[in-house]
């Protein structure tokens, strides 16, 4: 309120270089330490006030919980501060460049957040009579139509809760289709470069997983694939664009070969962002593909979810898709096809994948994003995403080894290896050096087919200035890694924590907080 820094004061100190003193609190100005709620809260504190209700005789059937639960409470001021301080220890898209390959860390528009919070969507129960949720069903339906049109497919299953759940959905549809024709095939072919969820999803459904070899170009080896096809092969799971950032040129030929051999083609659509509006997977013969709404369609990643993984399906697989789904009637009304109403309408559905109708909160956001861009804007998204990635590839390929630079332009992401670093220096050191530079590192050590892989996905929501600065910073860090700068080995220096001991964490897992031993506490 007043004469704080006396006007006209001039700093008396010399320029920097002076030793930085340790602080009493452990804080470093705006870099604030924060204890656990268990250390600052008590079971007697609360940040809520409750309405008064009359007392009643309990009808809990004698199951009263008498023992202390051990849940600490905080007042609202303490709560807001606790989480605000914690949040400040995180990196995020809102803070800066987050080129985590395969994750499509694009900007999350704030309109989406607003729309998702409208009471008519956020405050509606999944089991309300359908007459009272026509607007919500309309959103699901409208989004479904967009996804079908954008992919050129026949149908879409909206309920899967994330990409991996979508994979499972596609795999189950394949399994159901095979069973329906009495053809119990047991093998799913997956490239080595595939994301871990692919083999995991296939295995979950009881398939055995075999690798598809790659060419030196980083693409599926069509001939090798063809050679492996046969009556035991249920299908393939191909990521396109693939995890090396390349478009699978032979996708149509792969599909044709798989179909000819009686199998189905699953496409991992995690990287759909690179081609949305420029290529329709349906034109490439694909039978099922999940779309991560939290990647291509900008719903926020939320520190690890929630996501949403609708699966578009070919005509062949659509009849097997899961319940429930929405239906639009000629009179403009919507209904929900679930166990209650399915009757003969969708008798071959493989069943239900989740309790309710999917990630409504992500549908509103994704549709808001889609309507904002429109057909023209989405095409521009793909183009800018690919342009940005190629710009990075171009800007770094003389400094870092780019094993597939000869394979044609990259799509949404640029892949490098750790070839050429000084002895003892690794991809991890580069990642940690980038942290100090104010970036979130790229994806590292994935895909597995490249040594010390660095997978950089800029997305279309980054400016040229951001890319230029990143290229400069990356060149500087790589130079240090080539020169064997020991300060890089101990990076990060400026983050809330230095490198963390993951061996200790895994050897003696401490997964929940426990009151310190009285004896220990008394030391």
């Amino acid at each position, binding site marked *: 309120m007043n004469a704080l820094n006396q006007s006209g004061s001039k700093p008396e100190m010399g320029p920097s270089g002076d030793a930085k003193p340790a602080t009493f609190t452990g804080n470093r100005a705006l870099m604030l330490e924060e204890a656990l709620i268990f250390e600052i809260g008590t079971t007697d504190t609360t*940040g809520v006030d409750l309405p008064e209700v009359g007392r009643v005789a309990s009808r809990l059937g004698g199951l009263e919980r008498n023992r202390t639960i051990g849940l600490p409470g905080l007042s609202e001021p303490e709560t807001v501060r606790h989480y605000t301080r914690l949040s400040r220890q995180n990196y995020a898209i*809102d803070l800066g460049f987050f080129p985590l390959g395969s994750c499509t860390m694009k900007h999350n*528009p704030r309109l989406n957040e607003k729309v998702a919070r409208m009471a008519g969507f956020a405050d509606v129960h999944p089991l309300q009579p359908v007459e009272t949720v026509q607007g919500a069903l309309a959103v699901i339906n409208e989004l479904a139509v967009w996804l079908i049109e954008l992919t050129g497919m026949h149908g879409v299953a909206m309920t899967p809760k994330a990409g*991996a759940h979508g994979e499972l959905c596609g795999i189950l549809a394949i399994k159901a289709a095979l069973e329906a024709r009495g053809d119990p095939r047991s093998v799913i072919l997956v490239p080595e470069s595939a994301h871990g969820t692919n083999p995991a999803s296939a295995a979950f459904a009881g398939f055995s997983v075999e690798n598809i070899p790659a060419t030196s170009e980083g693409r599926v080896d069509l001939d090798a694939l063809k050679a492996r096809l046969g009556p035991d092969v249920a299908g393939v799971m191909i990521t396109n664009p693939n995890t090396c950032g390349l478009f699978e040129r032979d996708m149509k030929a792969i599909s044709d070969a798989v179909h000819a051999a009686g199998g189905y083609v699953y496409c991992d659509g995690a990287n759909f962002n690179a081609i949305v509006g420029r290529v329709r997977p349906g034109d490439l013969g694909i039978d099922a593909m999940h779309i991560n709404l939290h990647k291509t369609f900008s719903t926020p*990643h939320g520190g*690890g979810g929630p996501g949403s993984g609708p699966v578009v399906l070919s005509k062949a697989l659509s009849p097997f898709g899961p319940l429930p789904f929405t239906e639009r009637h000629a009179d403009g009304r919507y209904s929900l096809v679930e166990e209650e109403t399915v009757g003969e309408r969708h008798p071959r559905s493989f069943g239900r994948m989740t309790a309710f109708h999917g990630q409504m909160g992500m549908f509103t956001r994704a549709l808001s994003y889609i309507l904002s861009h429109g057909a023209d804007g989405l095409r521009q998204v793909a183009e800018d995403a690919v342009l940005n990635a190629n710009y990075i590839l171009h800007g770094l390929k003389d400094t870092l080894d780019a094993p597939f630079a000869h394979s044609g332009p990259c799509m949404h992401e640029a892949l490098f290896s750790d070839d050429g670093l000084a002895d003892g220096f690794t991809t991890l050191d580069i990642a940690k050096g980038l942290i100090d530079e104010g970036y979130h590192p790229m994806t590292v050590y994935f895909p597995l087919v490249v040594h010390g892989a660095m997978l950089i996905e800029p997305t279309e929501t980054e400016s040229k200035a951001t890319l230029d600065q990143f290229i400069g910073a990356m060149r500087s860090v790589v130079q240090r890694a080539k020169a064997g700068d020991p300060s890089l080995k101990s990076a990060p220096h400026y*983050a809330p924590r230095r490198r963390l001991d993951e061996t200790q964490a895994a050897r003696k897992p401490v997964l*929940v907080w426990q009151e310190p031993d009285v004896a220990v506490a008394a030391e």
Partner: protein
Amino acid sequence: MRYLPLTNTDRQAMLAEIGVKSVDDLFIDVPVEARLGGPISSLPNHASEMAVERHFFDLARKNMAASHHPFFLGCGAYKHHVPASVDHIIQRGEFLTAYTPYQPEIAQGTLQMLFEFQTQVARLFGCDVANASMYDGSTACWEAIGMARRITKRHKAILSSGLHPHYVSVARTMAKYTGDNLDTALPTLSSTTDSARLLDAIDGETSCVVVQYPDILGRMEDLSAIAAKAHEHGALLIAVVTEPVALGAIKAPGEMGADIVVGEGQSLGVGLQFGGPYVGLFACKEKFVRQMPGRLCGETVDAEGKRGFVLTLSTREQHIRREKATSNICTNSGLCALAFSIHMTLLGEKGLRGLAQVNHALAVQAADRLAQIPGVELVNDSFFNEFTLRLPKEARPVVRALADKQVLGGVSLGRLYPNAPELENGLVVAVTETASAEDIETFATALQEILS
């Protein structure tokens, strides 16, 4: 386009730098036949923020929002008052727009929160450990059955008839393909559960018994006997909690011997959202931790010896173990876990117990009031905040008639069990702190009118 920073000048400069003439040159690997020549013409072009917002506003108006009407739906999703600070915090860009904490040095915010969340869930459920979240209660339930199979190496899972029918459906879908055997049954409109059936069915083949607590009709009973019998036969007891607020009033499943406790966390912090995203809770005994699905956050130290947190035991997970992983889950429900954790922190034990008391008291008042309506009968002996009524006629049309009177009056069992005429008169009613005395009276009056 407001979300695209590149200007045409930028684009030209970048293409020149890369050494290609046009952006089409970057798509040369796409076969010519598959290239779209321009924006898909069946779809509209871009729209202003205002236009998009209005479109949604118009659609949102077509839904009956729970807060604007007397509201009594439950059955796996509950309307609770979520403090305003929860939504404020989860919108912090640092939480909202971060991803899985792969780089722990700059993700301590998310990691510490997960560690706190895991501890809260474990304590609430009476278990040793909990994971960093699953998609929702139904998938968590299925994953627990799979986990029991891996632990026991057996395939027979006995599902209580009180388990949410959608959870049963999900399990049934998966079981078809994993070779699990599910022993299921329909509930009956009576105050007693089918624990006798469960006890009977447990044998040396049994991998697990799955019991919802409180169950789909709002009933609940002590699980200790089932736990004892299961353990005797080397099987596991899996408890499913769809209303975590209940555990502020009633014993935790872990206290009664459950080996794995899963649940739906939506009640706290998350909101109704027409069914998703929600947050799956997953806790178990420490000895089973290496068979758990999903991410785990653990404590460690950094190179300076300071306490810090990391994702750990990832050798269970798909990104390391691929086809041998304990689950295929990757993206989970992080932000909902945060919301849950914040809400739980605001409550604290005192608030949670108080909230549970308010819910129970209102539910008792409502049950007594509704049971006074001629022809209406209260099914439950015991319940927490949800109970079942037997109406003198089919409940589904009654629910629609209530909606016409602007009352969202519960879930009809006909909706949940379409082919079970013996259940069709059942109406499940949930009453939380958001129901006022007037709401209850409005509901009762409307119901009486419809039934008479």
